[in-house]
């Protein structure tokens, strides 16, 4: 078995991204959909760090992008959970199928 290359890491992050996509498609609960989105964002972070480490080791731009993505994901999760709690207060449920007032 040879050394681990960039390709293996890209395979892992691709699989993780599509696992998150599957979860986003099948789940109907808002909290679990948010969890799937977190998985997808994390797979993108792995890509940034891996490309930076293996292709451009003299710079650190990928690391900074990862830091900014983590920060924005934290802000996004906080706002999403505030919205979810507000939705639960008015609808008594956090299923996306129950919040259809603005559909059509």
């Amino acid at each position: 078995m040879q050394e681990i290359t960039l390709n293996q890491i890209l395979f892992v992050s691709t699989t993780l991204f599509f696992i998150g996509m599957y979860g986003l498609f099948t789940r109907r609960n808002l909290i679990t959909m948010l969890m799937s989105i977190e998985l997808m964002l994390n797979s993108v972070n792995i890509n940034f760090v891996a490309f930076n480490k293996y292709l451009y080791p003299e710079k650190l731009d990928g690391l900074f992008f990862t830091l900014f993505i983590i920060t924005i994901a934290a802000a996004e999760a906080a706002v999403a959970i505030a919205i979810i709690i507000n939705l639960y207060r008015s609808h008594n449920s956090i299923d996306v199928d129950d919040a259809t007032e603005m559909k059509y």
Partner: protein
Amino acid sequence: MNISAIIFYAISALILGAGILAVTSVKIFRSAIWLLFSLVGIAALYFWMQVEFIAAIQIVVYVGGIVVLIIFSIFLTQHSGKEMPNPPKSKMIFSALASLFGIAFTYNLIYRYDAFAMNSSKPFNTSMNEIGTQMLSTTNYGYILPFELVSMLLLAAMVGCIVIAMRPSTNPISSATITLTGSEILNTKD
């Protein structure tokens, strides 16, 4: 097979297995715990790639912050032991097919570029010193402006969360009268 490769495959199995369980588990609380394991595995992958700072940030922000927030909101909005209804079979099959197609498509693309130009000759220096100097430099390629913008974004998100999740006052007129009387008190003092 050297020990580094074995560790990499073990970490990858942890990440992907926990990820699959996180999106397919029927109980929402278990799903959150599997997400926690997956995020810890990603932090381990960062340690394996020797970017210790990002790994520490991953553990502090994701494991210590976001997952705890998710678990709190599960407690606030759900019965944690209750089982969620399964999605319809047709939807599951089509989602799985779409995901598998995406995986196959992307694997094909990655596989064709088998030889990425790896210039591992240069050292990959990720010490705190280097990260701080490059990130907060004010030259052309520094990231000081996005850094400040992100701090503004965090402040806006914090205020926005409080405003959204705050329970609206049940009687708006009473609060208005309270402010009125307050100003009257001020006027009488004058």
